[in-house]
């Protein structure tokens, strides 16, 4: 994708990747999940969030990642539900130690050959029935988001439908703790980097922020938002591109989410890859494909 120039207003809304580009994104996402799964298998009681985040970083660097959309995150225990999170720095990994039967979330966003991934992986060290329930109930969310986007519903309406389904499920929408209460954000290609990035100020890729900023400027003029939430800013038809979607459900100090890329094209939408850990888990439990996809919200 060419670097956007706000001065030269493109006709095209959003971004339509070529099939080669899609392969690049898919490879990056697969690698990101592989990292999360590998680190999840290594987690032991007593480990800290910082250690879990660092392990993801090391694993990904060892597998050819030189750049990041954001530094890897890890949340343990009630921090998986973002309990009491008020300011952004609270998302950063802490010295919270993992215990037996504690839920965790790993989140990493490597840029592989210029292709960005942004994934979330929720699990537990041992057993946690509440977490199991939440993970199960993410399945209808994933099915509903895709179906509503396919129907061409306004993006804020889809986000509201997610809110409504979470309310019916009896959980809390914890992605509302993120800045701008985002359900998803747009992801684009970045200039590939040959050498590893040494430091990562604020744990967030500056390139990403500047790209997002440029996208946002263009988007604003075109009347849409790269930050997808329930607000009026997202009150527009689905915009083509790659969206990192992350519905995050919380219940009594236990939180879980999935995060993966949704591809929206001019007239259709699909998940970049259906071969992801949470879908595999649902298939094994007979929960996927979802039989009665809830279709909430108001038809446009």
């Amino acid at each position, binding site marked *: 994708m060419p670097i956007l120039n706000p001065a030269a207003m493109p006709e095209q809304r959003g971004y339509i990747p070529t099939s080669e580009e899609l392969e690049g994104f898919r490879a990056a996402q697969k690698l990101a999940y592989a990292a999360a799964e590998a680190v999840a298998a290594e987690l032991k009681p007593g480990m800290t969030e910082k250690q879990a985040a660092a392990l993801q970083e090391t694993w990904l660097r060892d597998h050819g990642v030189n750049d990041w959309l954001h530094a890897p995150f890890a949340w343990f225990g009630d921090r998986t539900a973002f309990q009491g999170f008020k300011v952004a720095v609270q998302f950063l990994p802490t010295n919270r130690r993992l215990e037996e039967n504690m839920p965790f979330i790993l989140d990493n966003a490597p840029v592989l050959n210029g292709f960005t991934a942004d994934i979330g992986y929720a699990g537990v060290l041992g057993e946690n029935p509440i977490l199991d329930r939440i993970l199960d109930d993410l399945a209808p969310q994933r099915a509903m988001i895709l179906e509503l986007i396919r129907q061409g519903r306004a993006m804020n309406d889809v986000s509201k439908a997610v809110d409504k389904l979470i309310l019916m499920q009896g959980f809390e929408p914890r992605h509302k703790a993120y800045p701008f209460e985002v359900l998803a954000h747009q992801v684009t290609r970045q200039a590939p980097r040959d050498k590893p990035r040494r430091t990562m100020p604020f744990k967030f890729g500056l390139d990403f922020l500047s790209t997002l900023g440029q996208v946002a400027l263009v988007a604003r003029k075109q009347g849409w938002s790269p930050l997808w939430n329930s607000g009026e800013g997202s009150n527009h038809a689905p915009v083509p591109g790659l969206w990192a979607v992350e519905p995050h459900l919380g*219940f009594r100090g236990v939180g879980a989410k999935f995060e993966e890329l949704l591809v929206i094209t001019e007239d259709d939408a699909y998940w970049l890859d259906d071969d992801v850990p949470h879908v595999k888990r649902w298939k094994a439990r007979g929960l996927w494909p979802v039989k009665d996809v809830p279709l909430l919200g108001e038809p446009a």
Partner: protein
Amino acid sequence: MNMSTVNSAGVDLQVFTYGDEKKQPIVLVHGYPDNHSVWEPVAKLLADKYFVITYDVRGAGGSDVPRKQADFRMALLSADLKAVVESCIGERAFHLVGHDWGSIQSWESVTADGPLKQRILSYTTISGPCLDHMGYWLRKRTLNLSASAKAKVFKQALSSWYIGFFHLPVLAPSAWQGGLDKLWPKYLKHREQVEEPEANPTQGKDGKHGVQLYRANFRNKLINPEERHAACPVQLIVPTRDNYVGTQLFEDLHYWVDELYRRDINANHWVPLSHPEKIAAWIEEFVSGVDKGKMSGALQHARVRPERRKLPLYGKTAVITGAGSGIGRATAFKLAEAGADLVCVDINDEAAERTAELSRLLGASAWSRKVDVGSAQAMQRLAKWVEKELGGADIVINNAGIGMAGGVLDTSTQDWDRILKVNLWGVIHGSRLFAQQMVDAHRSGHIINVASAAAFAPNRKLAAYSTSKAAVYMLSECLRGELADQDIGVTAICPGFVATGIASNTVYTGMSDEEQAAKRAKADALYQRRNFSPDEVAEAILKAVLTNPALSLVGAEAWTTRLLSRFAPALSRRVARIDITP
């Protein structure tokens, strides 16, 4: 009833059976100073469905009296049970019930490793702890330096005075022949509240020889207790006014029994005589639950869950209406976390079941019921179900309600009818039916009615809703006065604008569907902006359950309307003339 004699290692035991021997067998073991006849009323009630076996233990009734104290050792008493069941039912498995010493000695059969233990399907124990468990109980609390642990030991020692007395030579046995046997029925009647105790012809003998039971077993078991675990499910029935066996003795029992159910009954020690129907019903319910592999709701509720024992509402059952969403659902979760079991009621059965399901994940036993709270019959069915299945409710939260906006004149008769049915009649039914149950069962409890800040705030555009909520508030105050003597608390909860979804379902009277939809969207947005979560009301409800205030105001709106109506009624009336709908 059939009578026969069974020989157990030289001691003849008199055995009595009731009912068809092909049916599932239940063995009832009597205590001290009794004989088999203490079980007669219960045995007759159980005989319809079961083959009931009782016997006079050695030294009592028509059975032989061994001479030596050592002949009353626990292992021999357990061998007697084995001899009795082998003669009556061969190798079949059976259910076991014991009262007092019958319970103490049956613990030996239930917990001592051996073939007999494998054959016991379930055990119902009444007022007779395992002496080994008691030994550990004493040891733990004697070594514990805290004052409360010492107090418990002291309390039990006080009510066990007679055990010391039984160890006195000559005096104890001779008391039974010096007239105590004749006085015993009167003692049972006055001290133990057994209504018509029948004189037992062998009372003197039962009393005199049974003393050996204590002498042969207490000292060594208490000093050298063994680690004794039960393999079968155990139902512990605790008469809470027991003068001899303190309820505190059972607080560690879950350590020895994996599947333990505990039911308290407001009664004295001799419950098989004073409450035979209840005891027979509980035995039957437990035995059939074990046989079927699925326990009734009441037993699920009675299951001892050690991890929840310390919670403030442990053992309580709460009924919550409107539990499918908003304040009701948040309250369900809050009470579940505080230890209560729940009946989640809603007109939307899926939503109610969802609340129940999540409450179960929080460790509560929870059931869901689909009920229209405005229907007298439906509420009656609910109350009956709760009483029958769960033994009644301790906490009732009348929360279900609907919103309605519009003036007195705009609101049609049907709309008036509809809102009063849910908001007022629902609370009337819930309060009356469950309060009556509590009164009848002499159970203390708590009724919480969810009113609203609108109860104090007249407004031209919120006539029906405010009227219904003001009525709920007044009803709660009256009921509180009425039930104060019965130890039943009543609280009115008055929340402000809580984001519950009530705004998106509010009826705007006299408007088209489109107009209503627009109003709802606006109102919902306002509620969202207010960002006052149902959790805060749930927190206030939990606090009310624990402290029983007459009125609980939640949120700034509630305080404002309350204060205005009290101290600035004129201003409140000015506000009433403003249209507050969005």
